[in-house]
C-alpha cells in the first residue's frame, strides 16, 4: 500500500518545486530551465556540469542554478531528474504533498508552478497572442486591476481600454486637458504589488491600433510580460506598465514642460494650451491615457496632417 502511494506521487523538480507527470519531462525541464548555459544556450545535464561548462568554455563563474528557488540554488549538488535530491528534501516534499494539503510551501509553490507555463509561452517566439494564454483569471475587472496586474500581465494589451475606465480616470478620457496628477497614482500600488512575481513589463501595444500594427511586424507588438528566464525566482525592477521610464517620469508634474526660471509660469496652462485641442497626444504628461486614446487620435492626426 505504502509503496503504491509513493508511486503515485509525481516527479518534481528540486530546483523550483514544480511537479511533472513524467520524469522524462522533468529532465527536459531541468535541462531547459536550470542547466542551460545563459551564454551559448547549451543544455547541460546537471548543476555541476553547467558550472564546469561556464567556467571552462566562457570563463565565467556561475554560483547559482538559474531560475531556482533561493534555497535550492546550490550548483554543487548533482541532481538529475529525481536522482540526487537530498533525502530530507524528499521527505519534506512528501510530507507537504500528503500532510494536510495545506503545507505552507506546497500551497505557494503550486500556483507558482502553474503560472509558469503561460509565462513560457508568452515569452516564446513572439507570435503568441495573449488571448490564447490560459491566464488563471482571464480579463480582470478593472477594479481589481492594481492588485492583480502582476499576476496576470498577459492581459495587458486588452486591458488597456478597461484600465481607462477606472474610477477617477474616466472623466479625463474625453477631455483633452487630461494631465492631472491622479492618473499616475494607480500605477504605483500595482507597482509595489509587483514584487510578487516578475513585474509584467506589459506591452503598451494597446496603443497601436490594429492597422498600424499591421504595417509593422504584427506579432512583435505583444511583448511578454513575465520573465521567462526567471519565473519564480526573479523580478524586473521596472514599473509594471510597459512604457518607457522616461514617459512615466515625464508624466509627473515636476517634469511637465516647466518655464525657464525667469519666464512667466505656464505650467498651469500647459495641459490645456492650444495644442491640446488639436491633439491630446501632445500631452506627454499622461502616456497611459494617451495609450488608450492614441489610436483614435492618431487617425485624427494623420487625417489632420495630410
Amino acid at each position, binding site marked *: 500500500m505504502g509503496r503504491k502511494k509513493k508511486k503515485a506521487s509525481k516527479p518534481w523538480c528540486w530546483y523550483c518545486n514544480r511537479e511533472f507527470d513524467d520524469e522524462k519531462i522533468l529532465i527536459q525541464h531541468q535541462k531547459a530551465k536550470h542547466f542551460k548555459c545563459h551564454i551559448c544556450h547549451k543544455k547541460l545535464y546537471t548543476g555541476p556540469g553547467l558550472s564546469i561548462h561556464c567556467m571552462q568554455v566562457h570563463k565565467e563563474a556561475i554560483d547559482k542554478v538559474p531560475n531556482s528557488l533561493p534555497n535550492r540554488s546550490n550548483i554543487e549538488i548533482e541532481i538529475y531528474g529525481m536522482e540526487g535530491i537530498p533525502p530530507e528534501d524528499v521527505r519534506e516534499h512528501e510530507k507537504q504533498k500528503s500532510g494536510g494539503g495545506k503545507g505552507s510551501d506546497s500551497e505557494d509553490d503550486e500556483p507558482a508552478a502553474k503560472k509558469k507555463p503561460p509565462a513560457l509561452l508568452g515569452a516564446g517566439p513572439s507570435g503568441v497572442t495573449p488571448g490564447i494564454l490560459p491566464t488563471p483569471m482571464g480579463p480582470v475587472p478593472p477594479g481589481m486591476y492594481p492588485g492583480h496586474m502582476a499576476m496576470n500581465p498577459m492581459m495587458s494589451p486588452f486591458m488597456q481600454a478597461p484600465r481607462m475606465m477606472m474610477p477617477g480616470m474616466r472623466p479625463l478620457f474625453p477631455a483633452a486637458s487630461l494631465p492631472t496628477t491622479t492618473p499616475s497614482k494607480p500605477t504605483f500600488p500595482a507597482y509595489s504589488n509587483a514584487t510578487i512575481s516578475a513585474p509584467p513589463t506589459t506591452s503598451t501595444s494597446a496603443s497601436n491600433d490594429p492597422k498600424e500594427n499591421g504595417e509593422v511586424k504584427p506579432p*512583435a507588438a505583444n511583448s511578454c510580460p513575465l520573465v521567462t528566464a526567471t519565473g519564480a525566482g*526573479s523580478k524586473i525592477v521596472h514599473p509594471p506598465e510597459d512604457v*518607457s521610464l522616461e514617459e512615466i517620469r515625464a508624466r509627473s508634474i515636476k517634469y511637465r514642460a516647466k518655464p525657464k526660471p525667469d519666464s512667466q509660469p505656464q505650467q498651469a496652462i500647459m495641459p490645456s494650451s492650444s495644442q491640446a485641442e488639436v491633439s491630446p497626444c501632445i500631452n506627454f504628461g499622461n502616456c497611459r491615457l494617451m495609450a488608450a486614446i492614441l489610436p483614435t487620435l492618431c487617425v485624427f492626426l494623420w487625417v489632420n496632417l495630410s
Partner: protein
Amino acid sequence: MTDKMFNHANNSSNNPNKDLEVTSPPDDSVSALEFSPPSVPQTFLIAGSWDCRVRCWEVEASGKTNPKAAQAMDGPILDVSWHDDGTKVFMASTDKTVKCWDLGANQTIQVAAHEAPVKACHWVKAPNYTCLMTASWDKTMKFWDTRTAVPSMTINLSERCYCADVDYPLAVVGTADRGICLYSLEGKPAEFKRVESPLKHQHRCVAVFRDKKSKQPAGFALGSVEGRVAIQYVSPTSPKENFTFKCHRSAGTTAGYQDIYAVNDVAFHPVHGTLATAGSDGSFSFWDKDSRTKLKPTEPLDQPLTKCAFNHSGQIFAYAIGYDWSKGYEHYNPAKKVYIYLRPCFEDLKPKTT
C-alpha cells in the same frame, strides 16, 4: 521592493570605483551624455538633464573638469547630439522641440519640432549632405536641414521612438512595440530593413557598432529593461553571429528574488570595438562581443547609472548616476545628488585575445 540599492548607500562610499568626479553636476538625473567629436582639439563633455538644462564642461587631460556653459529648455532634456564640427550641440526636449546651441555664441535657436516629446536627436554627416535626425514619441522620425522650419523628410515609425543611434550610413531606431527598424542614410534616408526583435522586453537603448576591418557600421547592440543586451548584425553571415547576453542582474537574491535591472545605456569603444553597458542596478560593465566575454565588472554604485559615453579617442569613459524612475515615483529622493564620473578606460576595454 527591497531597497538593496538604497541601503547600500548608507554604508558604502558613493564612488566605489574611485573615478574622477565632474564638477558642478546637473541638479537632476542625466538623460544624455556626449563627448565632443574629433574635430575639436579639446575635449568637451555635454550632459542633458531632467532639470531641463544642458551643460558643457571642458575635460582636461588630467581629468579636471571646468564647467563652461549651460543652456535651458522648456522641458526636461531627453537627448543631445554634437554637430560634427564641434561648434554646436543639438538638444531634444520633452517640450517637443529641438534646439541648436551655438557654443561659441552661447545662443540657442529652435531647429526642429514634433507633436510629442523628442526622444532622440542625431546629427547626420553624409558626404553629400548634413542634417539633423529627430525621433519622437509622436511616432515619427524627421530630418531637418536646420535652416527651415519644416522637416525635409518625415518617416512614420511603427510606434513611439524609445531609442535610436546613427553611424552614417546606418540609422537604427527602436520603438515601443519592440520594433527595430534600420534606415540607410545613403543618398536620401530610406527604410532599409525591419528586424524581428531579438529581445522579449521593452527596448531601452541601442548603439551601432562597426566592422573591425572595414570600419563600416555592421550591426548594433540593443539593451532592454530585462537586463539583457542583443548583439545583432545587419547582414549576419550566419544566424549564430547574433546573440544576447544577460547583464545588470543582482548576484544574490533579495527577499527570495533575483532583481533584474534595465540596461539604461550601451556604448561602443571607438577604438577597440568592445562595449560598455550601464545599468539601473548602479553598475557598468565592459564586454567583448567577439569573444563573448565580460572584460570588467565593476562595483555597484548607490544609484542607477542613467547614461554612459566614450570620448572619441576611447581614453575616457564617462558615466552618470542618478535616479532613473525604475522603482517609480515614490522612490525618487531629490536629496540624492546626481554625479558624473570619468575614468581612464583604454586598457580596460582592450579585447582579451589581442
